């Protein structure tokens, strides 16, 4: 039998939680009470245990995704009752959270504005109390509240005729009949286009897609993007890489160009701290980072994820290579934890591994810079007075122009290029 476990309200009126870590994978056997997933909510960070013993047949959401209370977390095939096709849903969540504020220590209490009197002596009296000003939250019967929600009436704008100014069913009915201005039927105007039949396929936004959309828009709206393009000849780097490859494969590590690029960036960042910073206009200051945590964008079937190589300045090229391998494996297996993805100070996006020469990368907000690496192209270049075959790596650097001036961006990329065309320099400096 299939059992669908919905994310429960574990904290008195929660609406959602974020997945920090999965402990189980599809196909794995679990016992009732065994931890399935580590979730962060407004109230606590906690493990969610399985309510049933069985085999996990589906898990919903990857690390970093937000799951709404009542949405499925996992599906469990329950032992001993297989065969039957019946699907059992977890009992509806114990509560339907309606955020009305006023969460108490052990429960939720109805809050009234301070001037909404609740004098015990007035209980049962039918004389309405004169109100001095409109309270921010009125007293109301549950029925009146539900009706108001249903009819899209702002109950807090009504003055109740019940005891202590309580809004009653009659008050709501009156508000509807009089079509008073408190009845709000406002709809946000949006661009809508209707498609007929099979012209399009609608698909709901996944949590990860939603997060990507939000982050991209946030970056574009809150920074002043500026991108510059460069090409660097890397024949020397290629030779070094070929020479070192066997040494690295002895240590079971594939040596790509990326570790060299990370190293070059870290060293250039040290000389150009604006690129390793963020703008904090709210507090009239700039924030310069003393750590060099290089985020690397990784393409996964679910979408873009950006794990971070922490303290890359303290790692050798071999260690960087190993870290990159570890993080990309985790990304592919959806095993990245929140910790793996936070605290980045500068980002690299290596789209060249798929294709593409130049791009205008979107800054990983609130960082100040992102370097796009294109595909290496073989083409004629001028060396001295001669035309020779060159191996050219295209670079696209986007910076937040609020904090990084054009000159500084150019000087930074020049240094990166210097290191990549003459890698021995990285050892010397």
């Amino acid at each position: 039998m299939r059992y669908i476990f919905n994310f429960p309200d574990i904290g008195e009126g929660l609406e959602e939680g974020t997945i920090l870590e999965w402990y189980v994978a599809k196909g794995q056997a679990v016992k009732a009470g065994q931890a399935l997933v580590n979730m962060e909510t407004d109230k606590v960070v906690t493990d969610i245990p399985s309510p049933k013993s069985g085999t996990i047949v589906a898990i919903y959401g990857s690390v970093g995704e937000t799951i709404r209370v009542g949405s499925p977390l996992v599906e469990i095939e329950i032992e001993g009752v297989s065969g039957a096709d019946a699907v059992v849903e977890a009992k509806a969540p114990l509560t339907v959270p309606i955020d009305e504020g006023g969460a108490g220590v052990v429960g939720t209490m109805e809050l009234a504005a301070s001037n909404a009197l609740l004098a015990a002596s007035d209980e049962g009296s039918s004389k309405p109390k004169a109100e001095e000003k409109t309270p921010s939250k009125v007293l109301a019967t549950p029925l009146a509240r539900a009706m108001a929600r249903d009819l899209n009436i702002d109950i807090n704008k009504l003055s109740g005729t019940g005891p202590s100014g309580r809004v009653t069913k009659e008050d709501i009915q009156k508000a509807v009949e009089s079509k008073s201005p408190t009845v709000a039927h406002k709809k946000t105007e949006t661009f809508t286009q209707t498609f007929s039949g099979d012209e399009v396929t609608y698909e709901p936004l996944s949590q990860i897609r939603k997060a990507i959309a939000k982050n991209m828009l946030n970056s574009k709206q809150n920074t002043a993007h500026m991108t510059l393009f460069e090409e660097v000849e890397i024949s020397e780097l290629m030779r070094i890489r070929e020479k070192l490859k066997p040494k690295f494969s002895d240590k079971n590590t594939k040596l790509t160009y990326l570790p060299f690029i990370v190293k070059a960036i870290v060293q250039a960042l040290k000389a150009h701290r604006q690129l390793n910073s963020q703008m904090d206009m709210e507090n009239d200051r700039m924030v310069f980072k003393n750590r060099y945590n290089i985020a690397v964008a990784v393409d996964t079937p679910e979408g873009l994820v950006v794990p971070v190589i922490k303290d890359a300045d303290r790692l050798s090229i071999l260690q960087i290579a190993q870290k990159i391998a570890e993080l990309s494996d985790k990304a592919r297996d959806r095993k990245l934890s929140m910790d793996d993805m936070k605290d980045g100070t500068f980002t690299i996006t290596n789209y060249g591994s798929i294709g593409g020469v130049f791009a205008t990368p979107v800054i990983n907000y609130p960082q100040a810079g992102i370097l796009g690496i294109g595909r290496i192209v073989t083409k004629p270049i001028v060396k001295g007075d001669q035309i020779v075959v060159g191996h050219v790596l295209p670079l696209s650097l986007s910076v937040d122009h609020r904090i990084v001036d054009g000159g500084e961006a150019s000087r930074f990329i020049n240094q990166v290029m210097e290191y990549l065309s003459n890698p021995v320099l990285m050892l010397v400096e």
Partner: protein
Amino acid sequence: MIFNDFDPKEDKIFRVIDNEGKVINKNLMPDLDDETVIQAYKHMLFFRAADEMAVSYQRQGRMYTYPPCIGHEAIHAAAGMIIRDQDWLAPAFREVGIMLLKGVTMKEIFLYYMGNEEGSNFKKANHVLPISISIGSQYLHATGIGYSVKHQRKDEIVFTSIGDGGTSEGDFSEALNFAGLWKVPVIYTIQNNQYAISVPVRNQTNAVNLAIKSYGFGIPGVKVDGNDFFAMYATYKEATEYARAGKGAVLIEALTYRKGAHTTSDDPTKYRTKEEELEWAKTDPMIRLKKYMDNKGIWKENEEELIEKYKLEVDKQFEEAENMAPYKLEDVFNYMYVDMPDDLKRQKTDYEQFLTWKESKK
């Protein structure tokens, strides 16, 4: 007498065994046979297993908010083993252990935290009040019951308990003032677990300890190591003898540590350090009692098997609670008063209207 020898004014603490389970106060070691000690440990094992299961059920979305008791086991076991059937218990919400030994079942505790009124209807437990969630009111109830049994000359005494935060409530002082004045047969315990949700004791009072407050009410008080089963047992024994002899009430500060969260809605990592937790972990009441038994070589059970057995029992009781018929609307209004007052009647009518309306929307 413990209450005289360990004067809270000098900030003395009564302790019988140390963290290694060694007896450091032979004179005051309660006279218990091995069988009773083993039984006490088994009770504590059951409390902890039940507690862990309760938190797990809450996390599975099968039960509402729950306040974990982990760390309080020695206090609960000692009080629970001394309280008699005819004695009264006015519990706060972190006292599952004492309640269990008084005859309350885990099924009833679970029903309570599922919002079912049946969870306050303790069928096999004599003289146990419903759990008091509002901080401190149980102290007043205990004083009232104590006054009543004294007036009726009954051989009954009353146990009640409050947290360290609760001592800042007016109820605490009001209850103890009359307790001193009327010499009621009540054992008042403060389970000082260091935190009132996130507020540490040092932000709760300027007094050197909490037991010293007994001076103001004219009753004996003592600060006890609440993670020391033997100290708690000896203290409760002396306290009950004092109360039964008609001498009046006592105040016991049981020093312990809330190992878990305040409730399942609380995250203690936000206000206390790992180092502090590890420091207190050395005083864990179960580890200490276990070490005592091991030193004596009297523990021969397979602990893992026992825990598994207890968990199965707890799970059985949980499923019974979970499969109970849903409670009725009337339950919410019914049990507080013999005759329902008008305003409650009106609220009930309002809610019935709401349900009818909701039904009509389907």
